[in-house]
């Protein structure tokens, strides 16, 4: 099984020299689903930004789909970046456009149109449980609906890896569970998932046992049961 993300001895310090990440290592198998749990300001978002090459680590190595992001040319890094779906911390939806309009905007910006675009769009709407909301505007959706739309945008077109930056924040337990179930369905469809959360009970509620704990990083990494990591 191909490794989707391999983080080895990752270090990151602020400009003032304050260590945020120190020797963090974790692996995400190609069919894996990993939860990274940590309190606020522990560097969860930073970890995702480092994986996406939006920030450069102080040390260590990150392999994404077998490629070292730090050594790729900008053009190749962009190509690889398009194989990664990303749910940023704040939900970004286009309020004036419909659910379909949001997804079409992203697909057309990526140069995808015609039957291929329609196929991606239908799949994303189905996996994100937005079938009845196709014509609703982004602003017209409730909080959960907007999170679903962000999820649909992240998996459109089909990525190999999905990075989720605490998409459960601020939601009720039932709503959190619905989002986790959707992400699990996406994972079962063949997409490796790395999700962060500040809620330590959330992975446990879905049967994710703690796999690793680094006292310095204050992280607990949970891997989906039955997956070899």
């Amino acid at each position: 099984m191909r490794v989707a993300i391999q983080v080895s001895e990752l270090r990151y310090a602020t400009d003032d020299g304050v260590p945020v990440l120190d020797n963090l290592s974790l692996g995400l198998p190609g069919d894996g689903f990993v939860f990274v749990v940590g309190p606020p300001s522990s560097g969860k978002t930073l970890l995702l930004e480092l994986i996406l090459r939006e920030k450069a680590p102080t040390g260590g190595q990150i392999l994404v789909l077998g490629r070292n992001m730090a050594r790729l040319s900008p053009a190749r890094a962009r190509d690889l970046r398009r194989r990664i779906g990303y749910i940023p911390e704040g939900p970004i939806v286009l309020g004036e456009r419909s659910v379909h309009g949001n997804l079409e905007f992203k697909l057309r910006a990526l140069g995808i149109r015609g039957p291929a675009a329609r196929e991606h769009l239908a799949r994303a709407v189905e996996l994100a449980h937005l079938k009845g909301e196709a014509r609703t505007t982004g602003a017209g959706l409730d909080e959960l609906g907007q999170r679903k739309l962000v999820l649909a945008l992240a998996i459109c077109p089909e990525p190999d890896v999905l990075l989720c930056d605490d998409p459960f924040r601020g939601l009720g337990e039932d709503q959190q569970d619905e989002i986790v179930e959707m992400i699990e369905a996406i994972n079962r469809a063949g997409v490796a998932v790395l999700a962060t959360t500040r809620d330590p009970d959330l992975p446990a509620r879905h049967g994710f046992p703690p796999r690793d704990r680094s006292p310095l990083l204050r992280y607990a990494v949970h891997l989906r049961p039955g997956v070899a990591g």
Partner: protein
Amino acid sequence: MSYGSVFLIGDALRKSLRRPVLPGLGALAVAAVLISGTALFFIPTSSGVAEAAREACLLAQLAIAPSEAAIARLGSEAWTWPGVDGVAFRFPGESDPVPITTRTLVVRLLSGEARAGVESRLRALPEVVGVQYHEKPSRQTRVPPASRIAALVALLGTLALALWLGHQAVAQAAGRWGRELALLRSCGMSRALLRAPFFALGGTVGLMGGGLYILVCWALWTWGRPIRVLQDVIPSFPHVWPSLVTGGLALGLGLGLVGALMATFAPPPQS
């Protein structure tokens, strides 16, 4: 250019131009820059009052053969010669500076000393069948002496205004397109691709300004010749018409792009 870039440019332009006030004002300011620059370029440098007691010109009678385009080229060429202050074309029946009987180029000299050099060059042209020197008492120029200063001040003022309005138009568009930008950034789009729509907007504003400028020049040529204060400027238009059009569009585009450049390198708007 990829389909994705074309789509993004079209989408950003459509959304930006729904609020056309700032882009429209930007285009007006670009046109104002070009108009004041043109005025500065065309207003005669000699005051014609204090220094020269007499105004000297050479009347070059033209053969029947040359077309109007050829005459325009000829006038443009003569205008660049040393000692030449300006060139105008006269049809038979006109009476400035003397009654005209054949098609004539009136080559206004900076001073009487330039006569020999310019006259010999005119006589060497195959299109010219005769050259006549004419001198008349100098009268007060029709362009007020302070016009060049006023044009320079207008040029600098409108230039600053055009750049500021271009910057504001692009910044407003970036604000209106803020969530789209955030979405595209989260997809890993390159900065160059994210900036492309705003350069397109700046370029569009600049081209609109260039188009307005050409329209104003055409309107002046069509209806402005009787206006006394413009009589020193407008007769030169046919000689430089291609330069007015290409220069107007190119400079307008350049100004629009500079405004966009200033806006896109400013800190990104927060959605």
